């Protein structure tokens, strides 16, 4: 982990001193060279604003100031500094773990009301190797609180991979904490068992928000198009009450970043929508782009030239788009029904 600095503002808050007291202390340290009280730039502090000389302190620098203040006026400051660095280090480590979870849990899935994450994602989150993760699982099985199939781990038939539930991950984190010898690894693995659940809850909440946002954009697109099929220019009425669909010009799964963008949506009758996906593209699961839809209109509805112009305009607005890696979509782009 990179060197950790405490800002001057945080230092005075932690030491419960005034800003003037800190300035005076700094002046004292700088005034008499080569005495007992020294603060060295680069080692004890760094200057963040050259004009004012505002500093940020390393742990060594902050301890030196606390020691000086304790010797002269107050007591118990050493402990306050220690606590600040411990807490801040823990917060930073937790932020790192949360980022790892966010970037490595595209396997997240809810089954039987439990959240599961795949073994391969867990290897990355714990920062370990597969054989060691398995060793920890074996270790857990040798305790009274063994991992229970269906509750703590499971192998899902759809991909044949082993998944661990959050409770299972907690049990593994206890095993890591017990078996690891290096302190930093011990702390990392212990905290994996503490931050995954809140992070998963935040991720699921974001996926839900995204789902709502997509639905809202689809409704807005239908309103924008006056609830009329933009290909046939027909509107449902009491005689022909056909259904309308909001079609994603760049497909939702391959271009998830455009899924809730209104410019990426167009209103179609369900018949036309079906014809495009099934007949023109060869199935709803086939990825499509705006160019595919332009080709479709030009081929099957050549008289609707206005629509082609509108589509080309949308294409310019949307810019050059690249599909996401379909093999490992980002967890935030998972369909809501996978985690609900």
């Amino acid at each position, binding site marked *: 982990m990179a060197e950790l600095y405490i800002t001057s503002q945080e230092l005075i808050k932690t030491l419960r001193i005034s800003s003037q007291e800190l300035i005076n202390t700094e002046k004292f340290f700088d005034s008499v060279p080569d005495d007992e009280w020294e603060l060295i730039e680069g080692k004890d502090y760094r200057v963040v604003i050259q004009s004012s000389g505002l500093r940020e302190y390393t742990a060594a620098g902050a301890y030196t100031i606390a020691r000086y203040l304790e010797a002269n006026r107050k007591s118990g400051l050493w402990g306050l500094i220690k606590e600040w660095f411990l807490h801040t280090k823990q917060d930073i480590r937790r932020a790192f773990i949360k980022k790892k979870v966010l970037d490595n849990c595209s396997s997240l899935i809810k089954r039987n009301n*439990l959240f599961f994450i795949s073994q391969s994602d867990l290897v990355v989150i714990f920062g370990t190797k597969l054989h060691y993760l*398995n060793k920890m699982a074996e270790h857990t099985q040798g305790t009274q609180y*063994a991992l229970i*199939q269906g509750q703590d781990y499971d192998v899902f038939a759809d991909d044949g991979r*082993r998944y661990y539930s959050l409770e299972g991950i*907690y049990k593994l984190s206890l095993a890591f904490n017990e078996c690891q010898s290096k302190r930093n690894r011990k702390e990392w693995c212990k905290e994996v068992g503490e931050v995954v659940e809140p992070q998963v809850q935040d991720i699921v909440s974001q996926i839900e928000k995204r789902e709502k946002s997509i639905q809202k954009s689809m409704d807005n697109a239908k309103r924008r198009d006056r609830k009329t099929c933009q290909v046939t220019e027909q509107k449902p009425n009491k005689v022909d009450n056909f259904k309308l669909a909001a079609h994603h010009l760049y497909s939702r799964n391959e271009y998830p970043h455009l899924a809730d963008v209104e410019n990426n949506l167009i209103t179609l009758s369900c018949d036309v929508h079906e014809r495009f996906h099934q007949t023109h593209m060869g199935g709803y699961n086939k990825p499509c782009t705006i160019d595919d839809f332009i080709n479709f209109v030009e081929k099957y509805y050549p008289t609707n030239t206005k629509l082609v112009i509108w589509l080309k305009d949308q294409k310019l607005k949307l810019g050059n788009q690249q599909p996401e890696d379909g093999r490992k979509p980002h967890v935030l782009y998972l369909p809501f029904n996978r985690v609900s």
Partner: protein
Amino acid sequence: MGTTAHTEVKQSTKSAKTGEVNMSKAILNQILQNEISRFSEIHGVSTASLSEFALFVIDNHKKKDLKPKPTKVTKSKPLALSQLKEAIYQHFKVQGTTELKKSGAFQMATSGMGKLDFAKKDGWEKVYRKWIGILPDEDNETGYGCINGINIFKYDLPWRAFGLDPKLASTEEVKSAYRELSKIYHPDNRETGDAQVFHRLTIFYKSLTERF
């Protein structure tokens, strides 16, 4: 048959009291002696044994069964709410309920337990069972779902259910314990079989024999 036989038995008892124990055919009436001879021939048992048994029956058939003295089961006192809380605080290294609810470890550990009601003792007991151990008043519990002294539906303790020590038991022993319990709980056993218990035991078995 009873009356004649009874009269003669009384005589035999009296003589027994005076020290002249004589369990001979003479004190059994003819009907009984004939029946003893017939049984002896059919089943190849000595007439003396049968006579002795007949006398025993005549002598004891009206006596009441000795009631077994009820063994005093000393059930442990249930833990008080404060004791439950203290054990849980200690396990999750927190000072109180507010801190506990905020604890990431606690959230992880209870993520699959549904909504826990901490206003009631029940919520605390559920957490205790899951992460601390067996509640004293539930240790050596008997009744439905109880095997080797624990309720397998309340506790995720497969080793205890199989009566094995996790540090010492081999896979073969796990298999053997499962096989023995299956003989009792497999639904094919019409007398003691139970699908739910068997399903739970099978999950325990699969978990303990899983190759990670």
